[in-house]
């Protein structure tokens, strides 16, 4: 019964932490769009939190270069279970046009386990909301 209560709480209030692994900030701007009055994800209970320890969802943007790759792993370890990782943008999904660059360490899903891939450069806010709805469907 407590488990059902917890699952209900998790569906209705997802707290998001934005971990930028050297992005060009385009995806970050689109993420901030979601909090503005036009899309307003706070009505779904989604809040942008300042500390990874408060978060349920880790939104990773950007290509993981040599400097940010170990830090991304540290951030992932600091998010308490149960957690969801969303790779936002084509750079986070697969390193995109930077895959042969000199400072790209690894694709993000070889550093941390990714649950949802969100391609786009940048993905539209509607696509992000669609991804969030897919997570809510995955929480059983």
């Amino acid at each position: 019964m407590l488990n059902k209560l917890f699952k209900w709480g998790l569906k209705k209030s997802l707290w998001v932490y934005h971990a930028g692994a050297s992005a060009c900030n385009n995806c970050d701007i689109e993420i901030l769009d979601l909090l503005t009055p036009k899309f307003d994800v706070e009505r779904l209970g989604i809040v942008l939190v300042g500390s990874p320890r408060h978060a349920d969802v880790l939104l990773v943007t950007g290509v993981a270069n040599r400097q940010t790759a170990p830090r991304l792993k540290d951030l992932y370890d600091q998010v308490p279970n149960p957690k969801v990782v969303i790779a936002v943008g084509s750079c986070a999904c697969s390193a995109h046009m930077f895959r042969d660059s000199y400072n790209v360490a690894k694709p993000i899903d070889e550093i941390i386990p990714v649950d949802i891939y969100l391609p786009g450069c940048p993905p539209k806010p509607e696509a992000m909301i669609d991804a969030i709805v897919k997570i809510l469907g995955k929480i059983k």
Partner: protein
Amino acid sequence: MLSFIFIFLLTIIVGMLATWVDRKVTARLQYRIGPPWFQPFADFCKLMGKETMVPSGVSQMVFLGAPLIGLAGAALVSAILLTPGAGFVGDIIVVIYLLILPSLAVMLGGSASRNPLAALGSSREMKLVLSYELPFLLAVFTVMFKAGSILFSAVHGIPVLSFSGALAFLAALLAVQAKLGVVPFDIAEAEQEIAAGALIEYSGPPLAVFRLTRAMLYFVLPTFLVMLFLGGMDLWFPLKYVAVLTLIILIKNTNPRLRTDQAVRFFWGPVTGMAAVGFILALMGR
């Protein structure tokens, strides 16, 4: 015992609904829709189910005990204020002491977190408490002087309708705004600046208890103001409580955040001056 449990649950539920009203009104003023009414309860349920992560090398007793200290303070104050006929000599003073406990808990938790950002948040909270306690106490002393005693039940009439009472009410309202950690005085948990401040290392149930304490304060502090300044518990109590809550939300949504030094200067300057003038007027009998 049963009445204490009932009052505890009542404080939690009304306090959480008050935080929802705050979020909803803020959202509406920003042309957004805002969260549904059960949002604070969903946040609480979710946090209780997450795992608790304790940083290595911290004193586990202080780190995990700090939220409970805050909760105990808020719960005791709600018991003293809301149990009918439970007044005792000096209960106003006991309530003032107990109301420091939630801020103390945040300071303790932040200092115990072994994180420089948490220490920064904790020190900001300390400076804020230093600054607002002075006019808060002056305002409460004004009411105690007018009533001539230190019992809640001795406060009769409606103190806010007199000059001294009005000035004291304004000073106490601003101090309560800072106690709740609401803009313009939310420097201690300024998200954009210091990444969640003193509570940065808290996760799961301890964080849930901190947020629960804050929700309880949303009910307890305006009730305290109503009982001192607006004529206490009678049939008009819900209206008076909603009026004080509205004032707090109004001040929140029309002001930017103050820096620490601006907040300290504000409380030790104009607000203390206002509270002192109110006290002098009470001494003169107005």
